């Protein structure tokens, strides 16, 4: 079972969804030259079939702990702090906000790349 969050755009009369699933995998690093740990990790996998406004798919987001903040794991939205999320609910709400609204590059000096908002049209 996973949690599906439905987002409805009144202006476009269209719905999109974001899925939060809790899974277990051996995670391979992005860097091909890095050593892969054979140990399994338990984490949240956040996915959506929605596209960004430039028609680019959203990347899959992996959340291994409550200190993995949205915006390149360094800063929370709005409140410019490096504090970890205190609850799973707070994490889910913040990631959902980020999918819907997108963010600018290097927001709060986090070195994150730009992400467009969710496309409903």
């Amino acid at each position: 079972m996973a949690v599906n969050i439905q987002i409805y755009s009144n202006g476009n009369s269209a719905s999109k969804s974001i899925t939060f699933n809790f899974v277990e995998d051996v995670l391979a690093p992005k860097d091909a030259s890095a050593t892969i740990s054979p140990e399994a990790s338990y984490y949240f996998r956040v996915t959506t079939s929605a596209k960004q406004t430039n028609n680019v798919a959203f990347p899959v987001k992996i959340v291994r702990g409550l200190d993995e903040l949205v915006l390149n794991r360094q800063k929370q939205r709005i409140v410019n702090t490096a504090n970890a999320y205190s609850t799973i609910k707070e994490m889910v709400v913040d990631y959902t906000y980020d999918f819907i609204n997108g963010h600018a590059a290097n927001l709060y000096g986090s070195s994150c790349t730009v992400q467009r908002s969710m496309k409903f049209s």
Partner: protein
Amino acid sequence: MATIYVFNEAENKTYTVTVDVFGTVVDKLLALPTDGDIDYYLRISTTMRKTVDNSAFPVSIVRTLDDVPPGYPTATDFTDLVENYIEYYMDESELGASTSSSSLSSVSSSSKSTSSSSSTSMSSFSSSSSSSSSSSYIENWSSSSMSSSTSSSSSSSSPGP
């Protein structure tokens, strides 16, 4: 959903630990009135049973990394959290201890160190994960179930790492 399989060699029996994410309105029967907000949390359950009275473990509701098994410190991440729950369930079920005690009786009253060293290697676990969709619903959750899980910690001889 993540399902971890725990195999006990002595019993030739497989137990499961299930970790799943839920988004529901939680009714806190013995705490504050329900505020109507949807809460997102992990629910951890197992088919293992406590050795002390053969009762089932209560379902654990995890909202923060502080919601750990009795006697364990705050988890550093979700992997640490789940691994500690698996360890706690195996410890309370005495899966390893039961296998070592059976070998003790057949061997005679050999040294304690022999039995304790074999106990940790008798069980192995593997895991798998899957996904499906769910819709929100209202769930009754009593805080008394959490307190009962806390009280069970007193029966654990070595809950912490």
